[in-house]
């Protein structure tokens, strides 16, 4: 194809294959990243984790804190040319509120949400709520992306089939090859904010004509493609490839997400032996973060031990109760286990062999638990089997489980609202810890307004989490990005954004 002006293309290896195009329906990070390319948000989090207006021009809060009024920026357009209206945003928020955890919390206190005119959204609350902006400016899944009202009308449990957004890029459905390629082109009519970009906030200026995601299932091939110049940007190269990348003068490799990921070992609180808090705590004592991080991540450049349940380096990070893991005393762990009623019941660990990091975590845990005298059975499966099996509350004999491992991106566990910290077995996350005290502390957080208050609640929540041995925190690790030196304008953020990036 001949073109009058050379088209600039950013060729990207995304961290995963884009399977779903509905970032409200799924929580997959890849769908979220896709969402950021084609959708815009009312508010967005800046690099200090503070919500900033994005589609919103200005907003007011009533004295009693119950009425919030948001005015949209002028000139916002959907990709099909229609103007973005307040009604579209209301519909989008409502759909999101049915899927997202924080959204559900927020809608729990919303009395009414209406569009008072083309550009104005009015939100009335039943009681004051401290996290309104944090919720609608949420940076990670599910991000309240704005969609046209006709799209937002889709049942929240069904996927959308119209991919019109108002973000800086346009999704090219015809060029989409699931499992391989996704193509986005610059949205010429997008009006960025004038502020400089700061994480998700600030001006989203598309500096390339096209962004092409090509998924590589094989890390080695991906690495080779980047080094051979067939690709510009490699979103999540394995840490172990760093020496090669660093040795290559044409390529820059760096850590882009300041919060990194948090390794997470999850007990099933419903089944023996981990239905006994003493056994859980004994197990935690045996789990040394260094083993996990060195074993699974490798080079120490890419990891830090962190015994706070909130990512180290974020406002709520603290060290209450964390000595249970940080002391790392094997003999004490053995003694602690001996003091329990543990009867040798085998611990079934689900090992997702298609995810090397988690596979390694599983093996390290197995070894640690065996070291203190537990019987361990590692069951290998792929991640999708794991995801369906972990939802089972049945006994092990009927397909239940005792432990699995995963990680959260730092931004997902930044405050007590995170579902990872739930203490309500009905609505909580897999593993189902039960602790009313924890739940009380968590719900207080939504109403806290000052940072001190929030930090206090954070400490309380953490104290409970360690006390009940909810899960193992396996430390903080950082996944680098790698790109050819001609790529400029990367935004430091827990989420990968593609605006502001240019290819020279």
């Amino acid at each position: 194809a001949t073109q009058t002006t050379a088209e600039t293309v950013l060729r990207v290896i995304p961290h995963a294959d884009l399977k779903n195009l509905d970032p409200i329906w799924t929580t997959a990070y890849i769908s979220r990243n896709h969402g950021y390319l084609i959708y815009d948000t009312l508010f967005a989090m800046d690099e200090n984790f503070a919500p900033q207006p994005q589609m919103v021009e200005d907003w007011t809060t009533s004295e009693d804190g119950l009425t919030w009024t948001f005015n949209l920026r002028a000139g916002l357009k959907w990709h099909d040319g229609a103007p973005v209206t307040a009604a579209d945003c209301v519909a989008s928020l409502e759909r999101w509120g049915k899927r997202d955890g924080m959204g559900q919390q927020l809608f729990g206190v919303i009395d009414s949400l209406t569009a008072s005119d083309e550009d104005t959204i009015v939100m009335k609350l039943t009681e004051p709520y401290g996290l309104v902006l944090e919720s609608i400016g949420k940076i990670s899944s599910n991000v309240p992306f704005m969609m046209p009202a006709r799209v937002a009308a889709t049942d929240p449990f069904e996927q959308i089939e119209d991919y019109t957004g108002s973000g800086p890029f346009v999704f090219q459905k015809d060029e989409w090859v699931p499992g391989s390629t996704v193509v986005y082109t610059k949205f010429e009519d997008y009006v960025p904010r004038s502020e400089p970009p700061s994480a998700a906030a600030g001006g989203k200026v598309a500096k390339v004509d096209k962004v092409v995601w090509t998924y590589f299932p094989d890390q080695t091939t991906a690495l080779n493609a980047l080094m051979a110049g067939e690709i510009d940007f490699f979103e999540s190269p394995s840490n172990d490839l760093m020496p090669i990348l660093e040795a290559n003068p044409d390529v820059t490799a760096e850590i882009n997400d300041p919060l990194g990921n948090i390794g997470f070992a999850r007990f099933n609180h419903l089944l023996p032996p981990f239905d006994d808090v003493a056994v859980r705590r004994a197990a935690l004592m045996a789990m040394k973060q260094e083993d996990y991080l060195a074993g699974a991540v490798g080079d120490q450049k890419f990891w830090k031990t962190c015994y706070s349940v909130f990512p180290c380096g974020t406002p709520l990070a603290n060290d209450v109760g964390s000595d249970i893991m940080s002391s790392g005393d094997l003999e004490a762990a053995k003694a602690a286990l001996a003091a329990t009623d543990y009867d040798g019941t085998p611990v079934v660990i689900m090992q997702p062999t298609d995810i090397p990091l988690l596979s390694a975590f599983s093996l390290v845990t197995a070894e640690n638990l065996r070291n203190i005298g537990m019987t361990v059975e590692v069951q290998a499966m792929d991640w999708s089997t794991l995801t369906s099996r972990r939802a089972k509350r049945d006994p092990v004999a009927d397909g239940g489980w005792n432990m699995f491992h995963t990680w959260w991106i730092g931004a997902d566990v930044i405050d007590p609202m995170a579902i990872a910290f739930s203490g309500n077995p009905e609505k909580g996350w897999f593993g189902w810890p039960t602790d009313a005290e924890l739940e009380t502390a968590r719900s207080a957080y939504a109403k806290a307004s000052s940072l001190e208050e929030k930090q206090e609640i954070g400490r309380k929540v953490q104290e409970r989490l360690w006390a009940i041995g909810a899960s193992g925190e396996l430390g903080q690790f950082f996944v680098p990005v790698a790109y050819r030196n001609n790529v400029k304008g990367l935004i430091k953020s827990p989420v990968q954004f593609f605006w502001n990036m240019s290819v020279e």
Partner: protein
Amino acid sequence: MTDTNQDQLMSDSVLSQREDPGVLSMMLNNRAIFWGGSLLLLFALIAIFGPLFTADPAALNPIKRLKPPSVEIWFGSDFLGRDIFARVIYGGRISLVVGIAVAVIAVIIGLFLGLVAGYVRALDAVIMRVMDGLMSIPAILLAIALISLSGATLSTVVIAIVIPEIPRVVRLVRAVVLTVREEPYVEAAIAAGTRLPLIMVRHILPNTIAPLIVQATYVCASAMLTESILGFLGAGIPPEIPSWGNIMSEGRTYFQISPWIIFFPGIALALTVLAVNIVGDGLRDTLDPRIARKM
């Protein structure tokens, strides 16, 4: 009737020289079988007794991860600091077990179905259509699907590899049965009132043994390869049990920085499969089951 005795004596002297040389000595005289067999025997001995002398293949040592081969760690270490040498030696057990188990099971099931299909007209069509169906599904896909759907354990891997191998054995056995059942000596046995099961065991089954032995070696070789490919694609033996396939699979990411993780199990696998194939070829030439070659 006097002249008949003379005829008998005449040819007796000629014939007595033509003693059956014996399959065993023929096999030993075949260079391919000898060398392939020796190599295989060596690998088998290493696999059986080797793990007694090596380090623990599962011992983690994060400090020593991704170390290149050296005097202490002969084959280097992997991303969890495990000793590749110990893992490769141990992995040999798994590969051989998978290879042999698949070969034995496929041959037993295939033999049974093949005999039935070859002799029972009514079931022939049904069995062969099912076999056609199984054969038309690419083996690797079927195995991946079966394993990732039903969970990866040694036994599911063996089952998943066995299923697509069965049709080949069935076709082979059936072809032998269809040829042999037309042989005059089988018809003579029928005319002599021998019952069907006896005919099968006495006159037909022995003819399938030579081609089956040959086929079994090929099945064994291909099963070991399939296991490694499944392991490589992440759908093989669970990584807690080292097998050549999953060692390589885990080393996939590190191919550029630590090629030894793939290199050593790769060599071990290629050599073992080569040895099995060489033995198979040698057996084929010795036993010359023409049908096997045509399969």
